[in-house]
């Protein structure tokens, strides 16, 4: 191809990783995409994605979820993005870049963002079949594929990525080993004490750690595939798969080949504007660049800053990259690890404040200068205070350092809120967003929620570790600016659903009327409540019934009047006023005899039948007075209510699992039935759906459920907060490799905590996104019992389980309740004439002529319906 000869000047970007994408955004923000031709050469087959979150692929995020590239952005700015076509050579004389495909592009400015490559120690057989690195989505796909025929995996390198890789292998069902040459895990980030706390927690998860040993040789079998590794202490470790994660090296070959200066230990040498010291037309940013302070930065935040700097320099604006903070906060295998500032106390005259509880896997160290300034620190096991502490680095904290590291409950834990921070404190270090900017987003740009502020400032959009602080800042700012946010449930109650739950539980109030008269808004007391608070209170009372001494039957006494129509008639109201009926079919397993009963009932009552998405059968078109006779036959045949009408547990889907499927590793059907029977009838803020898959193939689609269970070779993985519907959300992994008892205990706690704290009609997916601290907080509460409420949550669930009664069996044996199941109070035997049906595809469908032609001839009084 000929070199480009157009007259507009051209910017060529080599590499489309996270830093490359940020560079493109910075160009667009500065208007450079409008004045320049921008060409991007990308080696990987997909555009920029979130490499920081790479491992989350194994907990269900798809490559699409990880993508950072909005193709509309690329298109809108006329960026020419060439995927799978890496740059192969640069001719600096002619100012051209040649790509693998033969494409030659002329440039006025060349920006190298080639990133880094994984370092693989030069041991024999390092390239054997079964050896991998951990860097790209393609690497992960290959590991996942190979792991299917492996039982053991070893990771070389106990750093950050190494631990993630080991966790991922374990998640894939392998016995996992970590081999680290240094005497402790994460040697760069943590000190000896932190390493010990980390080691204990990691080993408790069932990973085997070998520290202080090097890898000498990869052992291969006759077929050339990995069978083990020889270690420097003379021992041999049997393994089917090896992942090298022993650090990265700047990818500077392209620069070397065209004569650009590189550092002694690699990295393209650049000045403070990120311009190469050799050629003013060439820039280098990100992990391939050796910055002006003599360091190569392997973190994304400094890379972003370099991207901004280079874009500014190209635009002719003043900007400089002189060095960056290496603070990190990570969630490794569920363990918080954070280090910030001068974490190792390298400066002279530093004093350490250390709190260590290795039994609980906690280690916290603060480095304080003689002058009282906070210089840095390390947090392992609990990094709650990270955001605040990091922002205070370099200043004297307003409270004593000890009080900042002591755990809640020991002594006087100090809650140092983010409101104490100065305006120029950096809240989001990935995107370099200061507290002042976040405050302005609220005060100037009228943002009122975390998602709005994220969009406005980019804070919290990369690693997410600052989102909690973000939420606190927004609320503080809203309150300070006098914005009255009425968080009340409805016009009758100024409390949230969560607050009402606490009142009901603490004071054992079983009546909506009493609650309204004592705790309602002044003007609502003595009234009848409304269609929002009545079902909400009804649901709270039903969830807590055994614990507060209320009836566990939702049609008892005042409770009956609180229920939405579906719960009142224990069936689902359909558009023409008829109801549908769904008996429970636990786990979707049903014997032929019972199938026949359902068929006979549907035939005898002329009902329309359809298989539901939850593996059961829905019968439509029942008139209200038919419900008791339909249910009398269903109950007689051994069916019970499916609660399809309730804000309660719907179904627990399952695949056939180990019993029949050649891939299954656990009995998913039995577990699904157990779960469905355990949680049936549990009233909650919204409906609850669940599923159990018998292997990683996930045929039951558990990751789209409120709580989903996937079998592993060692037990069960529990996912929470998934959703299908209009706003699909992949569930998050809450815990791995649980035994049956551990699984059920954890679900008990999770559901009860959700019921306790969620808003009305808030599914677990939105709840998980909304609660401060998100998944981490929920995990702290239900796994680590950080609030000390797990015993209570478990006993509330135990009470529900032991008091469960089938509502329909109860109802058909109660003549007073049955009397309500009539179309007309004054003509109990007359069916509602509005409910009519016409045939369709061998079944019935509602006849709905009502709005167009009206039904009753006597309808001459104008009722003013606009719909007529």
């Amino acid at each position, binding site marked *: 191809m000929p070199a480009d000869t157009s007259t507009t000047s051209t910017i060529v970007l080599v590499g489309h990783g996270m830093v490359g994408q940020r560079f493109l955004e910075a160009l667009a923000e500065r208007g450079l995409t409008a004045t320049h031709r921008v060409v991007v050469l990308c080696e990987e087959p997909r555009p920029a994605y979130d490499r920081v979150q790479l491992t989350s692929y194994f907990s269900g995020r798809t490559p699409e979820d990880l993508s950072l590239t909005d193709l509309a952005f690329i298109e809108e700015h006329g960026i020419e993005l060439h995927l799978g076509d890496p740059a192969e050579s640069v001719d600096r004389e002619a100012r051209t870049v040649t790509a693998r495909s033969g494409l030659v592009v002329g440039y006025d400015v060349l920006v190298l963002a080639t990133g880094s490559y994984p370092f693989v120690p030069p041991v024999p057989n390092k390239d054997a079949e079964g050896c991998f690195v951990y860097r790209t989505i393609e690497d992960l796909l290959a590991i996942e594929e190979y792991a299917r025929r492996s039982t053991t995996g070893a990771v070389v390198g106990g750093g950050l990525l190494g631990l993630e890789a080991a966790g991922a292998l374990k998640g894939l069902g392998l016995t996992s080993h970590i081999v680290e040459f240094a005497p402790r895990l994460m040697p760069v980030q943590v000190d000896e004490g932190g390493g010990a706390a980390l080691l204990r927690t990691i080993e408790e998860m069932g990973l085997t750690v070998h520290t202080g040993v090097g890898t000498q040789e990869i052992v291969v079998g006759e077929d050339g595939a990995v069978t083990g590794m020889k270690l420097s202490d003379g021992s041999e470790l049997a393994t089917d798969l090896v992942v090298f994660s022993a650090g990265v090296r700047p990818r500077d070959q392209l620069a070397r080949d065209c004569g650009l200066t590189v550092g002694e230990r690699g990295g393209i040498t650049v000045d403070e504007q990120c311009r190469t010291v050799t050629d003013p037309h060439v820039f280098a940013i990100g992990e391939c660049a050796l910055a002006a302070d003599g360091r190569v930065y392997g973190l994304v935040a400094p890379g972003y800053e370099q991207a901004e700097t280079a874009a500014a320099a190209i635009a002719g604006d003043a900007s400089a990259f002189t060095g960056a903070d290496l603070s990190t906060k990570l969630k490794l295998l569920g363990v918080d690890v954070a280090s910030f500032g001068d974490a190792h106390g390298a400066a002279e005259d530093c004093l350490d404040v250390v709190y260590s509880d290795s039994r609980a896997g906690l280690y916290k160290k603060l480095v304080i200068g003689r002058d009282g300034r906070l210089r840095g620190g390390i947090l392992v096991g609990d990094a709650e205070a990270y955001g605040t502490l990091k922002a205070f680095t370099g200043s004297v904290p307003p409270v004593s350092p000890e009080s900042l590291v002591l755990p809640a409950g020991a002594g006087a834990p100090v809650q140092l809120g983010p409101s104490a921070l100065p305006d120029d404190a950096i809240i989001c270090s990935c995107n370099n967003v200061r507290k002042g900017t976040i405050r302005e987003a609220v005060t100037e740009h009228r943002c009122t929620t975390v998602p709005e502020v994220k969009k406005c400032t980019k804070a919290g959009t990369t690693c997410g570790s600052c989102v909690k602080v973000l939420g606190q800042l927004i609320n503080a700012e809203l309150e300070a600016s006098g914005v009255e946010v009425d968080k009340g449930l409805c*016009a*009758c109650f100024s409390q949230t659903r969560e607050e009402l739950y606490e009142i009901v539980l603490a004071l054992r109030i079983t009546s909506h*009327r009493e609650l309204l008269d004592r705790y309602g808004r002044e*003007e*609502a007391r003595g*009234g*009848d*409540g*409304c*269609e929002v608070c*009545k*079902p909400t209170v009804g649901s709270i009372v039903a969830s807590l019934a055994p614990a507060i001494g209320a009836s566990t039957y939702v049609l008892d*006494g*005042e409770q*009956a*009047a*609180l229920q*939405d*129509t*579906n719960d*009142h*008639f224990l069936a689902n*109201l359909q*558009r*023409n*006023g008829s109801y549908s009926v769904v008996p429970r079919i636990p786990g979707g397993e049903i014997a032929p005899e019972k199938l026949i009963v359902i068929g006979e009932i549907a035939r005898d009552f002329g009902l329309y039948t359809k298989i539901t998405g939850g593996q059961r059968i829905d019968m439509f078109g029942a008139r209200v007075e038919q419900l008791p006779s339909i249910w009398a036959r269903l109950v007689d045949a051994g069916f019970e209510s499916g609660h399809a009408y309730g804000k309660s547990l719907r179904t627990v889907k399952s695949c056939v699992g180990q019993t029949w499927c050649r891939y299954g590793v656990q009995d998913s059907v039995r577990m699904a039935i157990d779960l469905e029977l355990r949680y049936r009838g549990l009233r909650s803020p919204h409906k609850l759906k669940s599923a159990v898959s018998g292997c990683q193939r996930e045929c039951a689609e558990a990751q789209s459920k409120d709580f989903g269970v996937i079998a592993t070779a060692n037990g069960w993985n529990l996912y929470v907060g998934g959703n299908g519907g209009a706003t699909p959300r992949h569930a998050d992994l809450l815990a791995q490799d649980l035994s049956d008892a551990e699984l059920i205990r954890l679900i008990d706690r999770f559901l009860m905590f959700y019921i306790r704290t969620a808003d009305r009609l808030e599914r677990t997916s939105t709840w998980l996104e909304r609660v401060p601290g998100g998944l981490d907080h929920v995990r702290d509460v239900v796994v680590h019992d950080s609030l000390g409420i797990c015993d209570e949550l478990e006993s509330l669930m135990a009470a529900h389980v032991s008091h469960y009664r089938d509502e329909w069996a109860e109802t058909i044996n109660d003549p007073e309740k049955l*009397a309500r199941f009539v*179309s*007309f*109070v*004054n*003509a109990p035997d*007359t069916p*509602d*004439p*509005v*409910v009519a049906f016409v045939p369709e595809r061998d079944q019935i469908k509602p006849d*709905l002529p*009502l*709005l167009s032609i009206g*039904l*009753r001839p*006597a*309808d001459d*009084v104008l*009722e*003013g*319906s*606009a*719909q*007529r």
Partner: protein
Amino acid sequence: MTLALETTTGLTVQLRLADDWFEVCGLDRLIPGRGVAALLPDGRQAAVFTDRAGRLYAIDNRDPFTGAAVLSRGLTGTHQGRPFVASPLLKQRFDLETGRCLDDDTVQVRTYEVKAA
């Protein structure tokens, strides 16, 4: 519940149709906050309610937004001191005394005079 029962013995709920009072049911069939449907001689349907103070209300049972005869199955409440019922289908609220839809000014349902006697 007890409120309603105390006042009910022997009393019936009656709707005014033209010049006559039409007997619907015993007062004890009404639960505060819930309605019942009555079939009227001309084929219309009425939805009859009582609130916690024992006041009675009756409106047309037909939900004008869907055409289904379901208003008696909605939940009642108090909005700015006035009684209403929310349709169980699409949740529009209707003032129980005037029949006016609180969520759409152009829509109104018929009301009936009602008494316990």
